[in-house]
Protein backbone atom coordinates (compact mmCIF):
# COMPACT_ATOMS: atom_id res chain seq x y z
CA UNK A 1 0.00 0.00 0.00
CA UNK A 2 1.09 3.54 -0.66
CA UNK A 3 1.61 5.97 2.14
CA UNK A 4 -0.29 9.09 1.03
CA UNK A 5 1.41 11.21 3.68
CA UNK A 6 4.76 10.71 1.99
CA UNK A 7 3.49 11.60 -1.48
CA UNK A 8 2.64 15.27 -1.55
CA UNK A 9 1.04 16.17 -4.89
CA UNK A 10 2.45 19.15 -6.78
CA UNK A 11 0.50 22.36 -6.96
CA UNK A 12 -0.59 22.47 -10.59
CA UNK A 13 -3.21 24.96 -11.65
CA UNK A 14 -6.46 23.38 -12.80
CA UNK A 15 -5.59 19.84 -11.67
CA UNK A 16 -6.77 18.25 -8.46
CA UNK A 17 -4.65 15.36 -7.27
CA UNK A 18 -5.30 13.02 -4.39
CA UNK A 19 -3.30 10.05 -3.22
CA UNK A 20 -4.71 7.00 -1.47
CA UNK A 21 -3.24 3.69 -0.42
CA UNK A 22 -4.30 2.21 -3.77
CA UNK A 23 -3.13 4.96 -6.08
CA UNK A 24 -3.77 8.40 -7.47
CA UNK A 25 -6.91 10.23 -8.53
CA UNK A 26 -6.74 13.16 -10.94
CA UNK A 27 -9.45 15.60 -11.92
CA UNK A 28 -9.77 18.92 -13.70
CA UNK A 29 -7.66 19.64 -16.75
CA UNK A 30 -3.98 19.53 -17.61
CA UNK A 31 -3.11 22.51 -19.75
CA UNK A 32 0.31 23.44 -18.47
CA UNK A 33 2.83 23.58 -21.27
CA UNK A 34 5.45 21.38 -19.61
CA UNK A 35 3.63 19.04 -17.25
CA UNK A 36 6.66 16.77 -17.05
CA UNK A 37 8.32 19.28 -14.75
CA UNK A 38 5.65 18.98 -12.10
CA UNK A 39 3.25 16.14 -12.73
CA UNK A 40 5.84 13.99 -14.46
CA UNK A 41 8.13 14.16 -11.46
CA UNK A 42 5.25 13.40 -9.14
CA UNK A 43 4.19 10.39 -11.21
CA UNK A 44 7.76 9.13 -11.08
CA UNK A 45 7.80 9.49 -7.30
CA UNK A 46 4.54 7.53 -7.03
CA UNK A 47 5.95 4.88 -9.35
CA UNK A 48 9.05 4.50 -7.22
CA UNK A 49 6.96 4.31 -4.05
CA UNK A 50 4.87 1.58 -5.65
CA UNK A 51 8.01 -0.39 -6.42
CA UNK A 52 9.43 0.18 -2.96
CA UNK A 53 6.20 -0.97 -1.35
CA UNK A 54 6.01 -3.97 -3.68
CA UNK A 55 2.53 -3.18 -4.88
CA UNK A 56 0.89 -5.70 -7.16
CA UNK A 57 -1.26 -3.04 -8.67
CA UNK A 58 -1.54 0.74 -8.73
CA UNK A 59 -4.74 2.58 -9.68
CA UNK A 60 -4.62 5.83 -11.58
CA UNK A 61 -8.13 7.22 -11.72
CA UNK A 62 -8.43 9.79 -14.49
CA UNK A 63 -12.23 9.84 -14.82
CA UNK A 64 -12.41 13.42 -13.64
CA UNK A 65 -9.81 14.70 -16.09
CA UNK A 66 -11.89 16.45 -18.71
CA UNK A 67 -9.05 17.81 -20.81
CA UNK A 68 -5.36 17.08 -21.19
CA UNK A 69 -2.86 18.40 -23.68
CA UNK A 70 -0.59 16.19 -25.76
CA UNK A 71 2.30 16.64 -23.35
CA UNK A 72 0.15 15.21 -20.59
CA UNK A 73 -0.75 12.18 -22.67
CA UNK A 74 2.98 11.56 -22.93
CA UNK A 75 3.16 11.40 -19.14
CA UNK A 76 0.78 8.44 -19.15
CA UNK A 77 2.83 6.84 -21.91
CA UNK A 78 5.95 7.31 -19.78
CA UNK A 79 4.24 5.60 -16.88
CA UNK A 80 3.26 2.68 -19.08
CA UNK A 81 6.90 2.41 -20.16
CA UNK A 82 8.13 2.38 -16.56
CA UNK A 83 5.97 -0.61 -15.66
CA UNK A 84 6.95 -2.44 -18.85
CA UNK A 85 10.63 -2.76 -18.09
CA UNK A 86 11.73 -6.30 -18.93
CA UNK A 87 13.64 -6.85 -15.71
CA UNK A 88 13.32 -5.90 -12.08
CA UNK A 89 10.29 -5.43 -9.86
CA UNK A 90 7.12 -4.17 -11.41
CA UNK A 91 3.41 -3.83 -10.77
CA UNK A 92 0.26 -3.70 -12.80
CA UNK A 93 -0.82 -0.18 -13.73
CA UNK A 94 -4.60 0.18 -13.80
CA UNK A 95 -5.99 3.27 -15.47
CA UNK A 96 -9.61 3.92 -14.51
CA UNK A 97 -11.19 5.97 -17.25
CA UNK A 98 -14.52 7.43 -18.21
CA UNK A 99 -15.28 6.22 -21.74
CA UNK A 100 -17.63 9.14 -22.24
CA UNK A 101 -14.68 11.53 -22.17
CA UNK A 102 -13.30 11.54 -25.69
CA UNK A 103 -9.59 11.81 -24.97
CA UNK A 104 -9.81 8.98 -22.45
CA UNK A 105 -11.79 6.75 -24.78
CA UNK A 106 -9.33 7.29 -27.64
CA UNK A 107 -5.96 7.45 -25.89
CA UNK A 108 -5.96 4.70 -23.29
CA UNK A 109 -6.56 1.73 -25.58
CA UNK A 110 -3.61 2.91 -27.66
CA UNK A 111 -1.45 3.33 -24.56
CA UNK A 112 -2.45 -0.10 -23.32
CA UNK A 113 -1.60 -1.53 -26.70
CA UNK A 114 1.91 -0.18 -26.35
CA UNK A 115 2.41 -1.83 -22.97
CA UNK A 116 -0.14 -4.60 -23.10
CA UNK A 117 1.16 -6.96 -20.46
CA UNK A 118 1.36 -4.49 -17.61
CA UNK A 119 -1.36 -1.92 -18.21
CA UNK A 120 -5.05 -2.48 -17.55
CA UNK A 121 -7.81 -0.15 -18.65
CA UNK A 122 -10.95 -0.15 -16.52
CA UNK A 123 -14.10 1.68 -17.46
CA UNK A 124 -15.42 3.44 -14.41
CA UNK A 125 -18.91 4.66 -13.80
Amino acid at each position, binding site marked *: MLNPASLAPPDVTSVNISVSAEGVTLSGSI*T*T*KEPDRSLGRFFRTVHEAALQNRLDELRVDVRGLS*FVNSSAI*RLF*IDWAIWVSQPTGPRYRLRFVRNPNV*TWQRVSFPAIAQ*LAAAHVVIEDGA
Partner: protein
Amino acid sequence: MAHNPTRASLPARPTPRPTQQSQQLPRVQPPSSTRTSQEWRTAKEEVLVRLMFTPGSSPLETTHTFLNAYLAERVAPAAAQRVCLAAYELLANATNYATLGSDVVLEIVERIGKVSVRASNNTIPARVAMLRQQLEKIQANAEETFVSELKRSMTGGVSRPMLGLARIAHEVGLALELETSGERVTVTAVPR
Protein backbone atom coordinates in the same frame (compact mmCIF):
# COMPACT_ATOMS: atom_id res chain seq x y z
CA MET B 1 9.37 34.25 -50.85
CA ALA B 2 8.15 37.38 -49.16
CA HIS B 3 10.37 38.68 -46.43
CA ASN B 4 8.83 40.23 -43.40
CA PRO B 5 11.49 41.49 -41.06
CA THR B 6 9.18 42.92 -38.43
CA ARG B 7 5.73 41.94 -37.34
CA ALA B 8 3.42 40.19 -39.70
CA SER B 9 0.24 42.00 -40.44
CA LEU B 10 -2.99 40.47 -39.30
CA PRO B 11 -4.61 38.27 -41.88
CA ALA B 12 -7.29 39.99 -43.89
CA ARG B 13 -10.67 39.98 -42.25
CA PRO B 14 -12.21 36.67 -43.05
CA THR B 15 -15.53 37.69 -44.56
CA PRO B 16 -14.35 37.37 -48.16
CA ARG B 17 -12.54 34.16 -47.31
CA PRO B 18 -13.87 32.05 -50.19
CA THR B 19 -12.35 34.40 -52.75
CA GLN B 20 -9.14 34.62 -50.74
CA GLN B 21 -8.56 30.95 -51.21
CA SER B 22 -7.08 31.54 -54.61
CA GLN B 23 -5.64 28.71 -56.60
CA GLN B 24 -2.20 30.21 -56.31
CA LEU B 25 -1.99 29.44 -52.60
CA PRO B 26 -0.61 25.96 -51.98
CA ARG B 27 -3.11 24.09 -49.89
CA VAL B 28 -3.46 20.76 -48.25
CA GLN B 29 -7.08 19.80 -48.12
CA PRO B 30 -8.99 16.86 -46.79
CA PRO B 31 -9.42 13.97 -49.21
CA SER B 32 -12.55 14.13 -51.30
CA SER B 33 -14.38 11.63 -49.12
CA THR B 34 -14.22 14.02 -46.19
CA ARG B 35 -14.13 17.33 -48.00
CA THR B 36 -16.43 19.83 -46.47
CA SER B 37 -19.34 20.87 -48.59
CA GLN B 38 -19.21 23.61 -51.15
CA GLU B 39 -22.07 25.27 -49.31
CA TRP B 40 -19.98 25.47 -46.18
CA ARG B 41 -16.97 26.82 -48.05
CA THR B 42 -18.83 29.61 -49.74
CA ALA B 43 -20.96 30.58 -46.76
CA LYS B 44 -20.28 33.85 -45.03
CA GLU B 45 -18.25 33.37 -41.90
CA GLU B 46 -18.50 35.15 -38.60
CA VAL B 47 -15.41 35.57 -36.48
CA LEU B 48 -16.36 34.68 -32.93
CA VAL B 49 -12.92 35.15 -31.43
CA ARG B 50 -9.67 36.57 -32.74
CA LEU B 51 -6.65 36.55 -30.47
CA MET B 52 -3.13 37.67 -31.24
CA PHE B 53 -0.01 36.42 -29.47
CA THR B 54 3.71 36.93 -29.48
CA PRO B 55 5.83 33.91 -30.48
CA GLY B 56 7.39 32.24 -27.47
CA SER B 57 4.71 33.52 -25.16
CA SER B 58 2.87 31.06 -22.96
CA PRO B 59 -0.77 31.75 -23.63
CA LEU B 60 -2.02 28.19 -23.58
CA GLU B 61 -3.49 27.84 -20.12
CA THR B 62 -5.23 31.17 -19.96
CA THR B 63 -6.49 30.90 -23.52
CA HIS B 64 -7.87 27.45 -22.84
CA THR B 65 -9.62 28.70 -19.72
CA PHE B 66 -11.15 31.59 -21.64
CA LEU B 67 -12.24 29.54 -24.65
CA ASN B 68 -13.63 26.79 -22.47
CA ALA B 69 -15.88 29.29 -20.69
CA TYR B 70 -16.77 31.22 -23.84
CA LEU B 71 -17.61 28.20 -25.95
CA ALA B 72 -19.62 26.57 -23.19
CA GLU B 73 -22.04 29.46 -23.52
CA ARG B 74 -21.84 29.86 -27.27
CA VAL B 75 -21.91 26.40 -28.86
CA ALA B 76 -23.16 22.89 -28.15
CA PRO B 77 -21.08 20.91 -25.61
CA ALA B 78 -19.76 18.41 -28.15
CA ALA B 79 -18.67 21.17 -30.50
CA ALA B 80 -17.12 23.11 -27.63
CA GLN B 81 -15.03 20.09 -26.68
CA ARG B 82 -13.79 19.70 -30.27
CA VAL B 83 -13.03 23.35 -30.72
CA CYS B 84 -11.23 23.66 -27.38
CA LEU B 85 -8.92 20.80 -28.21
CA ALA B 86 -8.23 22.07 -31.71
CA ALA B 87 -7.61 25.61 -30.47
CA TYR B 88 -5.21 24.41 -27.80
CA GLU B 89 -3.16 22.19 -30.08
CA LEU B 90 -3.08 24.60 -33.03
CA LEU B 91 -2.05 27.45 -30.76
CA ALA B 92 0.62 25.31 -29.12
CA ASN B 93 2.12 24.49 -32.51
CA ALA B 94 1.83 28.05 -33.79
CA THR B 95 3.55 29.60 -30.78
CA ASN B 96 6.22 26.89 -30.75
CA TYR B 97 7.17 27.22 -34.38
CA ALA B 98 6.53 30.90 -35.13
CA THR B 99 9.50 33.01 -36.10
CA LEU B 100 10.33 35.79 -33.69
CA GLY B 101 8.98 39.19 -34.55
CA SER B 102 5.81 37.90 -36.14
CA ASP B 103 2.36 37.55 -34.69
CA VAL B 104 0.47 34.37 -33.95
CA VAL B 105 -3.24 34.71 -34.59
CA LEU B 106 -5.89 32.32 -33.35
CA GLU B 107 -9.42 32.60 -34.68
CA ILE B 108 -12.64 30.80 -33.91
CA VAL B 109 -15.07 31.24 -36.78
CA GLU B 110 -18.58 30.09 -37.52
CA ARG B 111 -20.20 29.32 -40.84
CA ILE B 112 -23.72 28.02 -41.20
CA GLY B 113 -23.73 26.88 -37.63
CA LYS B 114 -20.41 25.04 -37.81
CA VAL B 115 -17.43 26.24 -35.84
CA SER B 116 -13.86 25.97 -37.04
CA VAL B 117 -10.51 27.04 -35.64
CA ARG B 118 -7.53 28.49 -37.43
CA ALA B 119 -4.10 29.50 -36.29
CA SER B 120 -1.60 31.40 -38.36
CA ASN B 121 2.02 32.31 -37.88
CA ASN B 122 5.19 33.04 -39.77
CA THR B 123 7.69 30.24 -39.93
CA ILE B 124 10.65 28.86 -41.84
CA PRO B 125 10.27 26.80 -45.04
CA ALA B 126 11.54 23.63 -43.37
CA ARG B 127 8.74 23.82 -40.86
CA VAL B 128 6.18 24.30 -43.62
CA ALA B 129 7.48 21.22 -45.41
CA MET B 130 7.32 19.19 -42.21
CA LEU B 131 3.81 20.40 -41.48
CA ARG B 132 2.63 19.60 -44.99
CA GLN B 133 4.06 16.10 -44.73
CA GLN B 134 2.42 15.57 -41.37
CA LEU B 135 -0.98 16.75 -42.55
CA GLU B 136 -0.81 14.47 -45.57
CA LYS B 137 -0.13 11.53 -43.26
CA ILE B 138 -3.04 12.49 -41.04
CA GLN B 139 -5.38 12.86 -43.98
CA ALA B 140 -4.35 9.48 -45.32
CA ASN B 141 -5.07 7.75 -42.00
CA ALA B 142 -5.72 9.76 -38.86
CA GLU B 143 -5.87 6.80 -36.50
CA GLU B 144 -2.68 5.25 -37.78
CA THR B 145 -0.88 8.57 -37.48
CA PHE B 146 -2.20 9.05 -33.97
CA VAL B 147 -0.88 5.66 -32.87
CA SER B 148 2.42 6.21 -34.63
CA GLU B 149 2.82 9.57 -32.86
CA LEU B 150 2.14 7.85 -29.54
CA LYS B 151 4.85 5.34 -30.38
CA ARG B 152 7.24 8.15 -31.26
CA SER B 153 6.52 9.64 -27.86
CA MET B 154 7.37 6.30 -26.37
CA THR B 155 10.63 5.83 -28.20
CA GLY B 156 11.69 9.46 -27.86
CA GLY B 157 12.55 10.09 -31.49
CA VAL B 158 14.81 12.89 -32.63
CA SER B 159 12.12 15.19 -33.95
CA ARG B 160 9.26 16.34 -31.76
CA PRO B 161 6.19 14.19 -32.01
CA MET B 162 3.22 15.97 -33.55
CA LEU B 163 0.62 14.26 -31.49
CA GLY B 164 -1.49 17.39 -31.20
CA LEU B 165 -2.39 17.57 -34.88
CA ALA B 166 -3.16 13.87 -34.98
CA ARG B 167 -5.45 14.29 -31.99
CA ILE B 168 -7.43 16.98 -33.76
CA ALA B 169 -8.17 14.65 -36.65
CA HIS B 170 -8.50 11.34 -34.84
CA GLU B 171 -9.80 12.27 -31.42
CA VAL B 172 -12.29 14.98 -32.26
CA GLY B 173 -12.77 14.27 -35.97
CA LEU B 174 -11.95 17.64 -37.47
CA ALA B 175 -10.31 17.92 -40.88
CA LEU B 176 -7.09 19.88 -41.14
CA GLU B 177 -6.24 22.29 -43.93
CA LEU B 178 -3.00 24.08 -44.60
CA GLU B 179 -2.58 27.36 -46.43
CA THR B 180 0.67 29.14 -47.02
CA SER B 181 1.48 32.55 -48.35
CA GLY B 182 5.15 33.42 -48.27
CA GLU B 183 6.31 32.87 -44.71
CA ARG B 184 2.78 32.90 -43.39
CA VAL B 185 1.25 29.54 -42.62
CA THR B 186 -2.34 28.95 -41.59
CA VAL B 187 -3.71 25.68 -40.28
CA THR B 188 -7.47 25.36 -40.02
CA ALA B 189 -9.43 22.66 -38.23
CA VAL B 190 -12.79 22.39 -39.91
CA PRO B 191 -15.82 20.23 -39.23
CA ARG B 192 -16.18 17.43 -41.74
